[in-house]
């Protein structure tokens, strides 16, 4: 059977261009990255319904082909890029709004819908979403739910996963299951029978593993990048779209900003709060010439509440800002920053490329982290901004501006991203997302117990590791030609030099004689060369058997040394 027969001929492409385009996300990777992951998918598919997607999952499992679910590729953590080629499952053709009930304050959608389309649907009905991503203009609901994280609204409502009431997913073995509470009109729920069977099976599996019921275990599939299943439907909380009052304040120092922000979060509970560091605002100015707050620290956000509550809160924000030596900006500027919330990537114009580093860190540590970051990256062009959550944490993004056309320095410069991550960790920070590149932090990110649980279920659901391989859990790298060549050369040289130095060091003349003798009388190849060749082959094997985390543990320090040599 061909994939076109499963998903429809119009919904599959194997052209070089399409496979290349769907293999990218917002981050430009240095060429060296393709020495450990494959550069592109073999096939791109766009299933239009759950049943054809189920058939595709069965097909992939039977033929041992990796499957990678993809929204619109608007994240930068490698969650939707290929690692071992295989099939890209773009969900953008599954984008229906299936159910909305204002009394239940919930909406159920297919996961290929963009946040923007969902928001404009809800806004027409007087509702909005408690949380949506800053990439809402293009990101899909499924993409953000699969990766998790903070967004617009998180200052009041917490992270996105707290807004998920239930999901439907196709597991790596093809079972369709529903976790949590998926609200649907029973008359249009044409796969109910399949779901019942799937849930029965899942219930047994969870119970065998000592976990809760499917109702309680939504987090197995959300926030895990589709490694445990492809999310096809999601039921999200909605909230009334009350009066929106944006505000913005400037400060001369990060410490003042944090002081004001801490008090505002605790007493006002704004809908959204974001900060822009001095190096970010100074770059905004160069872009549009209207930035009056260049070089200042800006705290900006919005209230989403009743008119009366908003009136009181605006006064409180004004007072806290003044007490922290800040200035509250007028409404025009506040609306400017509110509208800018969806365009954090604007500063890429100064690159033209970006190396991102995003971390979660305690709000109170932010001034110290920022100071250290600036010192660490004093030779680089940097812009820093972040989103404040209601649990005392903040996600902060360090945009390191670079130029990918300068291949060597761009490659070497990538270690700065990992350096900032290490720096933030010293202050109690965590990687903001796991995706592909931070899988070695999985345990810390998810928590030890939860991560163990995920690992157990991954083994049960996907023993062949075909569903979004290498993401979250790491795994064996896909070695590129150059890395295998290096592996061979390293293995070869180690054995060759060892066979020359070793016997001479210990004075084993018999061994020297043996190594110098020919392998066969008629073929004049010395034994030392043959075992060196075997060493080279062993080198290739080591590279091929290397896991992603091992590759990163070796590669990052090498890049760091190179960076020191190049003075970056």
């Amino acid at each position: 059977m061909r994939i076109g027969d499963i998903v429809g001929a119009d919904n599959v492409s194997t052209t070089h261009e399409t496979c290349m385009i769907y293999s990218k996300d917002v981050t430009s990777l240095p060429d060296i990255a393709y020495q450990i992951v494959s550069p592109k998918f073999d096939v791109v598919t766009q299933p239009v319904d759950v049943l054809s997607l189920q058939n595709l999952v069965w097909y992939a499992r039977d033929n041992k082909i990796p499957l990678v679910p993809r929204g619109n590729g608007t994240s930068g953590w490698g969650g939707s890029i290929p690692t071992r080629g295989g099939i890209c499952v773009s969900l953008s053709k599954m984008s229906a709004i299936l159910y909305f009930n204002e009394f239940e304050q919930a909406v159920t959608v297919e996961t290929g819908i963009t946040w923007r389309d969902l928001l404009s649907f809800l806004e027409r009905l007087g509702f909005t979403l408690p949380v949506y991503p800053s990439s809402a203009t293009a990101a899909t609901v499924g993409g953000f739910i699969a990766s998790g994280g903070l967004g617009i609204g998180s200052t009041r409502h917490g992270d996105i996963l707290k807004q998920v009431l239930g999901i439907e997913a196709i597991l790596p073995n093809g079972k369709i299951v529903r976790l949590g509470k998926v609200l649907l009109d029973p008359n249009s729920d044409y796969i109910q029978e399949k779901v019942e069977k799937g849930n029965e099976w899942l219930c047994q599996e969870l119970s065998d593993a000592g976990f809760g019921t499917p109702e309680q275990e939504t987090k197995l599939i959300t926030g895990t990048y589709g490694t445990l299943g492809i999310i096809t439907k999601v039921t999200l909380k909605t909230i009334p779209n009350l009066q929106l009052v944006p505000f913005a304040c400037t400060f001369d120092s990060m410490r003042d900003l944090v002081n004001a922000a801490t008090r505002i979060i605790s007493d006002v509970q704004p809908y959204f709060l974001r900060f822009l560091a001095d190096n970010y605002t100074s770059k905004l100015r160069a872009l549009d010439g209207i930035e009056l707050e260049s070089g200042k620290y800006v705290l900006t956000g919005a209230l989403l509440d009743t008119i009366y509550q908003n009136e009181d809160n605006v006064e409180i924000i004004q007072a806290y800002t003044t007490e922290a030596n800040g200035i509250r900006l007028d409404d025009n500027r506040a609306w400017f920053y509110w509208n800018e919330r969806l365009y954090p990537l604007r500063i890429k114009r100064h690159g033209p490329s970006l190396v991102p580093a995003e971390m979660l860190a305690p709000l109170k540590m932010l001034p110290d982290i920022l100071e250290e970051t600036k010192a660490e990256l004093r030779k680089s062009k940097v812009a820093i901004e972040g989103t404040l959550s209601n649990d005392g944490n903040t996600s902060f993004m360090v945009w390191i501006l670079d130029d990918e056309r300068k291949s060597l320095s761009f490659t070497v410069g990538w270690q700065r991203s990992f350096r900032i991550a290490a720096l933030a960790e010293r202050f109690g920070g965590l990687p903001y997302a796991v995706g592909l590149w931070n899988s070695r932090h999985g345990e810390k990110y998810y928590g030890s117990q939860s991560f163990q649980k995920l690992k157990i279920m991954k083994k049960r659901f996907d023993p062949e590791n075909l569903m979004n391989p290498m993401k979250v859990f790491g795994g064996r790298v896909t070695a590129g030609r150059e890395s295998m060549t290096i592996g061979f050369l390293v293995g070869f040289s180690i054995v060759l030099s060892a066979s020359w130095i070793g016997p001479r060091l210990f004075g084993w003349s018999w061994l020297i004689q043996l190594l110098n003798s020919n392998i066969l009388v008629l073929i004049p190849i010395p034994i030392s060369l043959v075992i060196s060749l075997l060493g080279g082959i062993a080198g290739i094997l080591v590279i091929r058997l290397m896991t992603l985390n091992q590759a990163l543990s070796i590669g990052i320090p090498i890049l760091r040394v190179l960076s020191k040599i190049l003075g970056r």
Partner: protein
Amino acid sequence: MDFLQRYGQEDEPYVCASCGNCTLVCPVFRDLKWESYGPRGKLHIVKSIIEGEGVFGEDFANKIFLCNLCEHCTSVCTTGISLDRFWEFTRAEVRDRGLLPEPAKFVLDSVKSKGDIMWMGSADRLLWMEDIEESVKNRVLKQAKVAYFLGCNVSLKSQLHDVARSMVKIMEHADVDYTLLADKETCCGAPLGWAGNFEGINEMAEKNLEVIRNLGVETVVFSCPSCIHTWSEYSMYLQEENGLELLTTSQFINRLIREGRLKFEEQPMVTVTYHDPCIAARVLKATEEPREIIEDIPGIYKVEMTPSRQNTRCCGAHGLLNVVDPVLSSRIAEMRLRDATVTPASRIITECPRCILAFDLAKFTTGYDMKVQDITQIVANSLLPKDSRGVNGQ
């Protein structure tokens, strides 16, 4: 890919943040659903060609022409890339490499040989005057403050002749001192840019501007927003200080209404919706004037389409897509027509001849019963007869 340096575009493919905003608003992507037809995907292809992994061949050339140049991607680009200019520069390179699609070659030849996009000729630019010759013959090439520039579509396509007649009726009604270029009018040059021939645009614009300058004109009123855009962007004369004002018909009519020179009579109740032409809305920012005009006509009720104003969707006929791939172009028009059919409106008003033609075609292919009119037509049909305006025009 030296052409990128030549046009100062070498950074742009790398400045792209891959945020995907452009792709989701692209009319071609919305129909074909594959990223390789959307702006983000095309920029990835350009990057791959620069890096030696892709080929600048016929397939890529055809893809570059599957685009409406509707300015939507440019207007939503996070990093401020002028994507439409980028596509035009790439089309110029396609032309230089001899990879132009045949229909685009025809348009270039037609503009060069005949001065229009339809291989007709200057004499045919007088056909629209049939029946109103008496009232307009004294206006042709007359010294006046206002010139009415019809553009190729309105001059040459019979189903659009009523647009020109309506505009004449409005100007006569408001006692505007106007002039017509008639058979001295030639193509504004916009299709040359869309087909990758920038050198010719200034020359075409200059042919028209020379006539206009000799007539002492201060304001030029256009039935086609793309003509204004092209002249503002590429005419060397207009880029210098010259005091020549370029207005869309709605901008001009709205001015006449505010000056009290146009009055309307009560119309039988009609609900209309206004379709913002891409260039008028996103480049010329003329979104409020047509709405103000419609609101001023008693008995006409306006409802909004979603999306509208700067977020309007293309009708599918801009940027030569209607000649390069008429079927795709028509499907895009159908999508936009559906936006109108979900409103209570029974009539679409717009101010771009290309949109009118596209919707007229889409009406046939979809079977939607909806009247499509230019803003000038609804205004001309609603004017209070001069003799009933009273002594002071009241």
